[in-house]
């Protein structure tokens, strides 16, 4: 179901014209109102009037997380504080949080975008929306809340925690739409199983899950265990919060970015060069309608890919792939950008290979060498040398096919690759650069 028939299905030519006009307005606005942007634009040799088309976008300077920290708390706001009606802030694992602000109109647009997101999952005013995103400084709870109210659905503002009570209320109130992180959805499923609650007896039909990276196999698990359709949604507070992009329930293949409000680019994270559609790289956003906290070419550090092919759902907005990793993990091997998640996808596609691997990078003379260590479990073990060598060659071949980089697969004994709580250490870079 499409919430905004006019803008979500705008022909791409008209969409690009709208983006160009709004981009021009944005640059004018921030040049006048934000000293930081004026200085950056001057340094880059861009004057407000210079931006005439979307092609000029790649001449504009990037904005980074560090820029946000340096201007803490309100240095990048583009309107006087009298016009700011709300602030949110990211948790910020190191040091100060990242603070973002909204005008009344920003809140209104955000509610529209979250209404679009919820409608992507089929939400109507007859639905009961169980909103387990956290309420507070985090954008998830209130962002989703306003979108559900905009649709006219019944919102249960349950926020996070107290899982048993959540399940009880889900049963008693007849919740139909679930909003939370994908890991919390799995937690709910586990607690239901422990409590003897059969998800088939609930009225839940769809969940919109975001705020952390997840995988296709996790989608399968959530759908099977909760007996619902699970959709991936994307957003970040620096851009607006949730409501930047959402999968449609019709296709579940890539997340439509709401391009009438955000211009998305994919860049090479090493060189900053803009890449054509279809290439994998870092996702960059420019907010073209926000008033209080607009960003120009904000580098998300999230790795994705853009797909402009038409979607059967009818939306014309470009689709981004589910986030496959972070640029912080990126390796450059012989000039090629390699993300551990790409190698993982090769390994996971081979039956029997377990998700325990490590990448060892070294340099011999002036040549980078990539060794991929893979544990040999029973499923792939063979009593014949040729069986194991065929497997190694196959993995090397598929990595070369996908990444264009030669590697050497080293088979290792089980449990020899270090396990870690939480984030696994996938890369050991022994190059002395």
């Amino acid at each position, binding site marked *: 179901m499409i919430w905004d028939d006019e803008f979500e299905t705008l022909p791409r030519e008209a969409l690009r014209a709208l983006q160009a006009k709004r981009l021009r307005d944005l640059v004018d606005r921030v040049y006048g109102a934000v000293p930081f942007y004026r200085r950056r634009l001057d340094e880059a040799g861009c004057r407000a009037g210079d931006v005439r088309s979307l092609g000029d976008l790649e001449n504009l300077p990037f904005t980074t997380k560090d820029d946000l920290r340096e201007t803490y708390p309100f240095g990048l706001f583009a309107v006087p504080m009298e016009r700011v009606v709300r602030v949110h802030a990211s948790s910020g694992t190191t040091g100060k949080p990242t603070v973002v602000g909204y005008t009344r109109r920003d809140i209104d647009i955000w509610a529209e975008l979250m209404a679009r997101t919820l409608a992507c999952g089929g939400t109507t005013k007859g639905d009961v929306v169980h909103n387990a995103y956290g309420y507070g400084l985090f954008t998830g709870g209130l962002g989703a809340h306003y979108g559900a109210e905009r649709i006219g659905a019944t919102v249960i503002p349950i926020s996070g925690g107290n899982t048993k009570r959540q399940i009880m209320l889900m049963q008693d109130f007849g919740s139909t739409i679930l909003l939370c992180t994908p890991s919390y959805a799995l937690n709910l499923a586990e607690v239901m199983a422990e409590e003897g609650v059969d998800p088939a007896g609930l009225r839940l039909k769809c969940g919109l899950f975001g705020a952390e990276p997840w995988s296709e196999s996790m989608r399968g698990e959530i759908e099977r265990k909760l007996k619902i359709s699970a959709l991936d949604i994307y957003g970040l507070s620096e851009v607006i919060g949730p409501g930047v992009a959402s999968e449609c329930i019709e296709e579940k293949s890539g997340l439509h970015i709401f391009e009438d409000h955000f211009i998305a680019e994919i860049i090479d994270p090493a060189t900053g060069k803009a890449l054509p559609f279809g290439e994998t790289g870092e996702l960059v956003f420019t907010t073209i309608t926000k008033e209080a906290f607009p960003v120009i070419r904000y580098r998300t550090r999230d790795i994705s890919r853009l797909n402009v092919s038409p979607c059967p759902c009818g939306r014309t907005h470009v689709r981004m792939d589910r986030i496959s990793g972070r640029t912080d993990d990126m390796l450059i091997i012989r000039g090629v950008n390699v993300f551990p998640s790409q190698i993982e996808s090769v390994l996971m596609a081979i039956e029997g290979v377990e998700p325990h691997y490590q990448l060892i990078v070294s340099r011999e003379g002036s040549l980078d060498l990539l060794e991929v260590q893979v544990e*040999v*479990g*029973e499923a792939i*073990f*063979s*009593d*014949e*040398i040729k069986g*194991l*060598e065929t497997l190694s060659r196959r993995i090397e071949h598929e990595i070369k096919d996908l990444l264009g980089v030669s590697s050497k697969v*080293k*088979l*290792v*004994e*089980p*449990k*020899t690759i270090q396990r870690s709580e939480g984030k696994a250490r996938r890369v050991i870079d022994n190059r002395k650069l």
Partner: protein
Amino acid sequence: MKVEQISIFLENKSGRLAEVTNVLSGAGVNIRALSLADTADFGILRLIVNQTDRAKQVLKETGFTVGKTEVVALEVPDRPGGLGGILKILHEAGINVEYMYAFVQRSGDNAIIIFRFDETDKAISVLTGAGVRVLRGEEVYAL
């Protein structure tokens, strides 16, 4: 007519083979025959033991990757041309030998050789048809 063999994945690191033998002796398992195939990075140790399931279990518990395969034990006349005669039979029947290794023990005047064939059942029927003695598992484990 088949013999159970266990195979173990070993990284080419010092002490791995010793670890296997320690685990087996600790469990009271006796090795009857063995062969080690190796590449630059890893090796595959193949063993015939007196207690296959027990050996497999204790090695798995120690963290090794262990497989179980069926192989064939043949009595080969211990004289020039003894092995050649058997290989000729197999060649004529179009059966491939994946690998083979000799037993230390003898069976009377004959040597015992372990064979891994691409078509195990066909090999057994061809060989028995040609009068070659194929040893039963129990005979081999008890040698």
